[in-house]
């Protein structure tokens, strides 16, 4: 079953100005339910932009986005949250620093649902929070009433992941969620990600800078460059990929780019 269907999506930022950027150029991508797709790409290739387009941070200029059988192209960001769980690159982005751990979790427990005057922290809910948080193995279950602002980046990312998946999302978006962490915390968060995504077979779209993560995680890998998908590895081909293979592909892109420029220069010299 198709969970996510991105069709001919384009996005240009600052159109008509000197800062005009074609971030996405006719991107097509289909995700079957339960697949875990890794996105890699050079800086400015549009990988984070693609995630944000799906999340609804902005509306796309052209194309359509279908998620879980519904056309969400014109849905505002907060409406799409009903279907999507997200973890951001910046550990400060996913949690509310001055609220306690349990307040944050209670917010996540109502993702995409109506919020009324019900008490946020019922005893049964707090018991479940303690249970789920203790599985992070960070000792945070004793600190549920502490403000999240007092936690480390790794702890905050682990909690954000827990919050994003507290209610089962139709789609999980991970935007370089370990890039800002120290290596040890990054490993912890990756182990947690494997556990969470694997256990619930969540449909996941994950952007990463780490070739190691790209090679070892997920069941499909796409490589983006200049707002387009230039490689798509699936099945056995994805399983065979090693970090060196991926680096080689980046090198190819770089050479092609240089060739383009030198060729353009030569043409300019000869004919203009």
């Amino acid at each position, binding site marked *: 079953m198709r969970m996510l269907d991105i069709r001919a999506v384009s996005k240009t930022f600052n159109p008509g100005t000197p800062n005009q950027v074609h971030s996405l150029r006719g991107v097509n991508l289909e995700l079957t339910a339960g697949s875990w797709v890794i996105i890699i790409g050079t800086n400015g290739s549009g990988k984070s932009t693609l995630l944000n387009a799906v999340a609804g941070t902005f509306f796309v200029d052209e194309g359509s986005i279908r998620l879980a059988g519904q056309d969400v192209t014109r849905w505002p960001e907060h*409406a799409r*949250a009903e279907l999507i769980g997200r973890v951001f690159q910046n550990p400060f982005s996913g949690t509310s620093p001055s609220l306690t751990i349990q307040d944050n979790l209670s917010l996540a427990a109502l*993702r995409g*649902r109506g919020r009324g005057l*019900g008490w946020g922290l019922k005893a049964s809910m707090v018991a479940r929070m303690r249970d789920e948080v203790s599985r992070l193995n960070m000792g945070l279950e004793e600190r549920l009433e502490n403000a999240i602002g007092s936690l480390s980046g790794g702890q905050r990312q682990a909690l954000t992941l827990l919050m994003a998946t507290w209610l089962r999302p139709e789609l999980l978006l991970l935007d370089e969620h370990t890039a800002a962490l120290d290596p040890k915390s990054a490993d912890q968060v990756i182990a947690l990600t494997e556990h969470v995504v694997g256990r619930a077979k969540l449909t996941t779209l994950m952007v990463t800078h780490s070739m190691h993560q790209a090679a070892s995680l997920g069941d499909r890998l796409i490589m983006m460059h200049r707002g387009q998908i230039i490689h798509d590895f699936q099945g056995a081909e994805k399983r065979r990929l090693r970090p060196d293979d991926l680096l080689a592909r980046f090198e190819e892109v770089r050479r092609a780019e240089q060739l383009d420029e030198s060729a353009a220069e030569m043409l300019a010299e000869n004919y203009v």
Partner: protein
Amino acid sequence: MSLLVGTFTIGFILSLLALGVFISFRIFAFPDITADGSVTLGASVAATLLIHGVTPPVASLAAFGTGVLAGACTGTLHTRFKINPLLSGILVMTALYSVNLHVMGSSNISLLGVNTLATQSERIGVKLMRGATTFDLAGWEVSVRDAMVLAAIVLAVLLTGTLLYWFLRTNLGIAMRATGDNVQMIRALGVNDGNMIVFGIAISNGFVALSGALLAQYQGFADVGMGIGMVVWGLASVIIGEALVGTNQLGLTIIGAVMGSVLFRLMVAVALRWGLSPNDLKLITAMFVFVALIVPQFIRKGRMWGAHA
């Protein structure tokens, strides 16, 4: 003694204003100037209704309601039309000046001889004291009227503060606090942050208008100029309150805002007693807030300097 009781009474009345400012400035980090207009709005609506024989509790609630409307206007200007928060507040505040004149029909209304919350509590007090108009409190002679009004106000503030505390801990209230804290996160969790801001600023101005309504009933008149500088006053109270409780725990910050308002009023009363001209009051208040805002920076700089030395 009656001066002291009066000082406490005004301090508690204005603590509702401080709670309103706490919601806009601290929870949403939204510098909402509307409050200057909605204090007067609350006062003029309540005063006009009282003159037309509406019962004081209903008139006060109506004042709260009009404050909510004013705040909703400011919130909508900001969220729907993308106008800068400060400017949204200024626009609504300016518009309210004319609205208030229309509500009152003149630039001020006297409540002399009109049934208000103050006269009501006085009547209850005299009944309780079996006809006495003064009583003895630790050697001081206190008028029953003053004591009863203070008691009524304290009760009202206690009730409002508790309601606010309860509300901010419900699912909706938690979402509201998170909106001011981290918009990106709250959108990702499915909350319409624009609606949250409109709702929060509306409640904030409801509190402010209620404060104005009580103030008018206590002092016996509503005046179109009574709201000038009230935002700064509320901000001063909130800042003092934060210094007093020294924590960002929700319940304590609410108590702090109330205590800050009373303490600030006391400080002002003492300063006036020492010969400060009432004309200089707004200047002193503004300077006080200025100092309170920059002191934390200096402390930080001092620490850094200390670390280098």
